């Protein structure tokens, strides 16, 4: 879909109802991989609300991203049970080894890293999710092995790629 049409289609989907702002922004993010600023401006204009209103929502909720995401999505559960079973150390190791911030993307665009507060699979903690696939009972070693094995597609290297 051409860039100009994305916002138009999303607004139409929700009848332009401001109460559905969060679902609209979620759809926008699903379409673009993140929330590009020109699209946000377009959405704000279309809904006749100030851009700051959208920015407030985008920065309040952790699931919104204002920068492109990596080729792979790595979610690490750091809920209580995972914490008890060593998720903190795994998180620390990933951040150090790949030089990636929580919520950020590796320099080569390989993956985005998001520690989250409980994915509801506590019985098999610690849990890491890579591109939607659950890995149960991960350790520092097994997590590293999984992440090192992620393929990097050359064409979109550099973190510019859209999924």
């Amino acid at each position, binding site marked *: 879909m051409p860039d100009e049409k994305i916002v138009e289609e999303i607004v139409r989907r929700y009848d332009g109802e*401001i*109460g559905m702002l969060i*679902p609209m922004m979620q759809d926008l993010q699903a379409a673009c991989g993140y929330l590009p600023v020109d699209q946000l401006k377009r959405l704000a204009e279309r809904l006749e609300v100030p851009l700051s209103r959208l920015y407030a929502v985008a920065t309040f909720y952790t699931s919104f991203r204002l920068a492109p995401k990596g080729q792979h999505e790595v979610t690490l559960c750091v809920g*209580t049970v995972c914490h008890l079973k060593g998720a903190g150390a795994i998180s620390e190791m990933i951040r150090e080894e790949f030089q990636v911030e929580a919520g950020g993307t590796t320099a080569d665009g390989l993956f985005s890293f998001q520690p989250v507060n409980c994915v*509801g699979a506590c*019985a098999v903690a610690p849990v890491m999710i890579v591109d939607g696939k659950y890995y149960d009972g991960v350790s520092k070693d097994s997590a590293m092995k999984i992440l090192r094995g992620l393929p990097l597609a050359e064409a979109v290297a550099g973190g510019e790629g859209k999924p």
Partner: protein
Amino acid sequence: MTVLETKRLAGPADLEQWRGDLRQAAGRITKRVRICLGPGCVAKGAAALYDRFREAVEKSGADVEIQTKCVGCHGLCACGPIVIVEPGEIFYQQVEEPDVAEIFRETVLSGRLVERLLYQHPVTGQKVKTADEIPFYQSQRRIALAGNGFLDPVMLEDYLRIGGYTALAKALTGMTPEEVLLTVEKSGLRGRGGGGFPTGRKWRSCREAHGQPKYVICNGDEGDPGAFMDRVVMEGNPHAVLEGMILGAYAIGSHDGYIYVRNEYPLSVERLKHAIVQARDAGLLGRNILGTDFSFDIRINRGGGAFVCGESTALMASLEGRPGEPRAKYVHTVEHGLWDKPSNLNNVETWANVPAIINNGAAWFAAIGTAKSKGTKVFSLVGEVVNTGLIEVPMGMTLRQIIFDLGGGVKGGRAFKAVQTGGPSGGCIPARYLDAPVDFDELTKLGSMMGSGGMIVMSEDTCMVNIARYFTHFLMDESCGKCTPCREGLAQMLAILDRITHGDGRPGDVEKLETMAGILEGAALCALGKTAANPVMSTIRYFRAEYDAHILQQRCPAKQCRGLFRYQISVEKCKACGLCRKHCPVEAIAGAKKTPHVIDQQKCTRCGMCLEKCPFDAVLKV
């Protein structure tokens, strides 16, 4: 199985006719394999099992009909993936892909048992055949989870077969809204989301409030880490939630419903969306439900990943497309809620209890549980417990029964230290209160709370100061920042807890924490802030000695806080393999072939690498 077309039901007679047909069709199938696709089992590869069983059925060319079925979480996640074979309800645990062929050949086709996949009774040591013989299941009583493990969550037909939407038909054609409301009031049902507010009273306030339209909201923003009850209900039996909401809407006089599901549960959203479409197509939701004058529809909103949105006023702000900031409680949401209209919000598990109450009556429900907490409660039993999983037990069962009889005690034979209930707003309950009955009021007395039902078991190896620090950090991160006590207070409390766990605590720190906790409780705007100090307060109350050891002796008794204990190599156990020496990042380990290795405590950074790498358990924490 014969696929029966979804039809639009013109009335209760249609519904019963359809149900009868479905039961007859299902009765013709004698062989059935049910594969648990709960979150635990899926993480262990259960989805592939389903595919393998399907293939086995196709290849076998058996002359009888064999059905493979995905079902919602069965409960005993520790033993997953779980597969049940009918007839006989044979319970197989820890099933892996290579086992499928054998189960299919032996049990499904020939009716013989595969001994090695059966559950071993922890006391008698005997292999048992069915879930009913397993202690984990024996003391449970399932209402909200009644359909889990039996029905395929994407099949409306399955829900109808086990009696789904009978309560709705009964209410719409035989009861006035007032009668439905009275039944819920008399049942004594209290909100399962944490607060324990009487559900019937909330409904009545909303019904009597002025203003139209009225909204009915389901809170599926299950944010407490360590809790996954609501996830399992939404994903395992979504129609039960819908039926509960429709009944509530009928009693309250609402035509618009919302389900707010947290962003981390994409499958819950998918299941609920699917169920809503099915219910609409069947005439069980939408305009003129079951041919009556009553209309009600539901839509789903996905959260954005903010814990505070589990709070009712924050959730409503989020539904309005704004940042999820709570507001002061003196304006009641039942009068001025979503879009300033009367709004009734209940949690997923609360809604799932409603159909059973309407079906069986208030007296039936009120006979279960304790004097002031009626019915059952679903708990996620997790942490250092043997049988991790999901349980539903009558209110009033003691912590000891739950953790030791059902849960099988602490993993690895270690000593029990505490159980954390109520999520980040709850507290840690020590061993001496193990015989306390679990209900809303008893847990509050102990300085914790029921919360949504997370129950995290902690062993002697868990540092209570560290766990208080963890929750405070969590809450500081999740504080919306609207009110000062929560935004600033938690940051200050965390700074103190940080220095205590790093060995830099000062005398008087505990008293400072207590003072700030008092201010937080009194001055914070919402329930999240008011209860935010509970983890700190309950650990100070029950485990003061651990705080003192950290502060006065720079020692962590649980040997968890880095720097507050040492690593040492046991001369007897060390086989001089050199692995620890090779992996030590700061070359703090000395040793040669055939000489036990030694750690230079001056150089050691307490990273723990040697302990991880030692194949002989020779590295000790002291």
